[in-house]
């Protein structure tokens, strides 16, 4: 009898092993796809509860006063802005526009030049005056070094805006020289290591409050101190859309997330139950006991 087996049990293929053979990544992907496509066309309109991060993010935007200077830093490219993130970026930018703040768009992605016209087309930024109420800065690589230099001396780092106009001639930069003169930084990024870079170079050094549109895990150590609010990717985007009463695609995504996640959890419970119920103990392969 093999080690770990009790008498009377099958020596090959427990129920748990059989489940693992039936459920393959390919079959799981097909099931996920089928559920997702069904829900996209027949949404269940399940309710959404607003979390604390989204509430903090929203309240920070609501606390802005007309004339406040906001740096909106984003790594969006046309594939995102016109693609899956269209609705949330439009919602946040329109919220800033409603508050009548002055917006400095600071890009951190190479495809930025294709986004500026899209912002003009799909948001209400046409109600503002370019150069006085908002400005598009050009993309410069260098990540943390570039952000440090930009924060220390904005007009020295970027000589001109994306259209080639000198920053010293733009009214928005009349009293803005560094990050010390900024009232709020709205930072959106997708690369996980960027969170700590932004936290180091902007709020830690200059004290500027920062709210983010990024994965919470990348900045949770600073949440409440340097980071004052966050939209935790798709969940946060859906909560924000619900809060602003702008039903959009991210709410639909939560439908798929609800159903597929519960399916995976149910399979985990079934797998664990079968593991214990069949009474077969394989030797642990790791110190974690699995």
């Amino acid at each position, binding site marked *: 009898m093999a080690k770990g087996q009790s008498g009377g049990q099958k020596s090959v293929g427990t129920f748990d092993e059989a489940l693992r053979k039936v459920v393959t990544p390919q079959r799981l992907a097909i099931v996920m796809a089928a559920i997702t496509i069904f829900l996209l066309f027949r949404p269940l309109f399940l309710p959404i509860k607003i979390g604390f991060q989204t509430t903090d993010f929203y309240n920070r935007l609501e606390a802005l006063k007309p004339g406040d200077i906001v740096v909106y830093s984003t790594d969006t490219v046309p594939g995102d802005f016109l693609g899956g993130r269209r609705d949330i970026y439009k919602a946040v930018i329109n919220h800033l526009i409603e508050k009548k703040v002055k917006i400095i768009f600071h890009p951190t992605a190479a495809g930025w030049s294709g986004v500026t016209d899209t912002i003009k087309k799909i948001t209400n930024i046409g109600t503002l005056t370019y150069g006085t109420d908002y400005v598009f800065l050009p993309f410069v690589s260098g990540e943390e070094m570039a952000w440090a230099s930009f924060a220390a001396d904005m007009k020295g780092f970027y000589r001109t805006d994306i259209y080639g106009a000198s920053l010293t001639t733009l009214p928005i930069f009349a009293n803005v020289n560094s990050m010390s003169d900024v009232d709020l930084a709205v930072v959106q990024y997708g690369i996980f290591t960027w969170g700590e870079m932004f936290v180091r170079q902007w709020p830690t050094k200059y004290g500027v409050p920062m709210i983010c549109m990024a994965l919470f895990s990348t900045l949770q150590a600073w949440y409440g101190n340097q980071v004052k609010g966050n939209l935790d990717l798709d969940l946060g985007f859906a909560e924000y859309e619900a809060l602003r009463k702008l039903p959009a695609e991210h709410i639909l995504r*939560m439908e798929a997330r609800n159903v597929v996640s519960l399916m995976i959890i149910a399979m985990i419970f079934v797998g664990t139950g079968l593991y214990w119920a069949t009474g077969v103990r394989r030797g642990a392969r790791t110190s974690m006991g699995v």
Partner: protein
Amino acid sequence: MTKTEGISRAASTRRLYQRVIPTFLVSFLATILVIMYFFAPLGYTPAGKVIDPVTPEITLWGSIVTTVSFIFGYLSIPLIHVRRLVARKVNTKMLFGSAVCLLSLGLMLIIIYFAPGGSGGLVYSTWNLYMIGFVNNGMRADWAWHPYTSFRIMRITALESGLFVTSFILAVLSQLPMITYLVPVLGTAGDWIGSIPTTAAMRAGLACSGVSSIVLFVRSLIGREPGLIEVEVI
């Protein structure tokens, strides 16, 4: 001078400009920036000039060097693929891939520099959305492995795996809007796990990485960290 002396003098000269000077450059630039950070206040003079002009200047230098390095990197990609196509020493699939890469790169540059509106025009943004963005969606399809992996390894078989799996399940439930709406306590439990024990572990981990950054800085200061210039350049 004997032949041996000549060789060792040449070697020490080579060592000077290939290793000693670059290593000194690292410690010199890092030291200036650290001194300015601790001793130069933020702010402006009454005349409107920034009090610390050194930090923005040096970081701008770093940014310019980085930009040129990125250009070098993005020029190396087509160079490698052209060399591969010319040499033809690899299998057909790799040659095919190289040809496709060069074709895509060429088309993208043509659109950026010659299409109406250039990189701000409709052709560029449409191409970027469909021919890059949609393709990117397909390439990310291997994320379908992740839920499968979760199902595959998550079993409560001991105390420690139980902690891992329980934390996982509570965290997932707290991220499902339907669950947090219908059973709020599950949402609170998952949020607590993310906000307290996870944050505690992350604070400790970040503190440790902070200590290692300081150690790295001190070692580079005394020229004991040649890996900063040599590992990247062979």
